[in-house]
């Protein structure tokens, strides 16, 4: 990398904030560090400070952690106002079948098509193709069993679209594997 720019804390904060403002996608700590020449530890420190600052009452935007990166987003409570400006946003339009398949991939990844079929009780080829095309899932190697079937996993784009910082933030699977059976 280029020479490390020795900026004061104030300047470091300004640089990070400028990048977050200009970007239309979440920026990861390595991306922010590489572009600014700042140490990753400094970047993280600044991000924490900015998160606190934007989290304060009376701010219109918030620093969100999405798909392994940081991004400035408007607060959800201002959605009705922004819609009056003509800025409509549609959530990803997915059929129930596609959402079911996506849920299985999200919680069981990496997972094969046969495993999805077994859980849903129907073939999932078409919905898998849709999810691949939408960039929500991707192929993730092959399972080491007979036939070496393709394994599927969710993408960074999936995390961004569903407001998740990482897979750890998925809510627990409802009533997972029925431990309450008599």
């Amino acid at each position, binding site marked *: 990398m280029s020479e490390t720019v020795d900026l004061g804390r104030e300047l470091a904060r300004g640089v990070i904030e400028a990048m977050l403002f200009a*970007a239309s996608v979440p920026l990861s700590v390595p991306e922010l560090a590489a572009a600014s020449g700042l140490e990753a530890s400094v970047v993280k420190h600044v991000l924490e400070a900015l998160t606190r600052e934007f989290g304060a009452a009376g701010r219109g935007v*918030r620093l969100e952690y999405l798909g392994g990166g940081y991004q400035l987003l408007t607060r959800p409570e201002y959605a009705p106002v922004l819609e009056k400006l003509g800025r409509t946003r549609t959530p990803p339009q997915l059929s129930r079948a596609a959402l079911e398949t996506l849920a299985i991939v999200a919680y069981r990844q990496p997972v094969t098509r046969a495993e999805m079929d077994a*859980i*849903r*009780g129907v073939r999932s080829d078409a919905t898998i193709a849709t999810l691949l095309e939408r960039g929500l899932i991707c192929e993730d190697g092959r399972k080491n069993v007979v036939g070496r079937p393709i394994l599927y996993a969710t993408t960074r784009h999936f995390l961004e679209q569903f407001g998740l910082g990482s897979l750890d933030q998925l809510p627990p699977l409802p*009533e997972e594997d029925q431990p309450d*059976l008599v």
Partner: protein
Amino acid sequence: MTALSIRLEGFEGPLELLWHLIERDQLDIHDIPIAHITEQYLQHLQEQEWRDLEAAGEFLVMAAQLLQLKLRVLLPRPDTPTGAGDEVDPRQELVDRLLTYRSYRAAAAALQSMALQRSRQWERPNGLPVVVPVAPLGTDAAGLRDALAGLLARATPLYSTITRDLVSIGTAMRELVSAVFRARRQGRKAVSLSELVGRSGRRQWVISFLALLELVRRGRVLVAQERPLGEIYIRPRQRAEEVPAS
């Protein structure tokens, strides 16, 4: 007549249909009345018209499994004493599948509301690309126009007019004769062909040479050449009748 397929009816698959029946009839998932649900399931299938054979197959496989299950529940196995504690409920596998399916269906609904929530937050559209900077154009509209004009000027046109060289042999003959006589008036005995044609192109050389040959044939000039491929010297014939106009 109903032409609806089971998919159009809204059931993605046999598990979803079973859940629909369980909830509709308020059945206990942990104590499913197999005979009842099998009957309801089959009745539902009979009311359908099947268009999608693959989907039909999936529903029919479940129907077969239900019938088999019904038999196992109704007919106690002869070799096991009834009420033995270690006997696994034959319905267990189906119950597990239904519960697993339901938990993912709930997860799917949760994902949908998460996406909806996310869609209520806006990001800045198309900010500066941070990682890959775009090289500046370094020009304005006028610059673009000039660049296009230059490009068009250099471009090979689809149609063009080829102008034919209009110097004819006759013209060349007249020029040669006048040049030769002019040289004699200046006191020179002869002029070389290269002096007359000079640095003109290949075409002019050929025309001039043909003109010279024609003048020789008509007896207007005499030529001399010291050696093959050497310089050609031209002088007028001594007994030229007419004096060309200069």
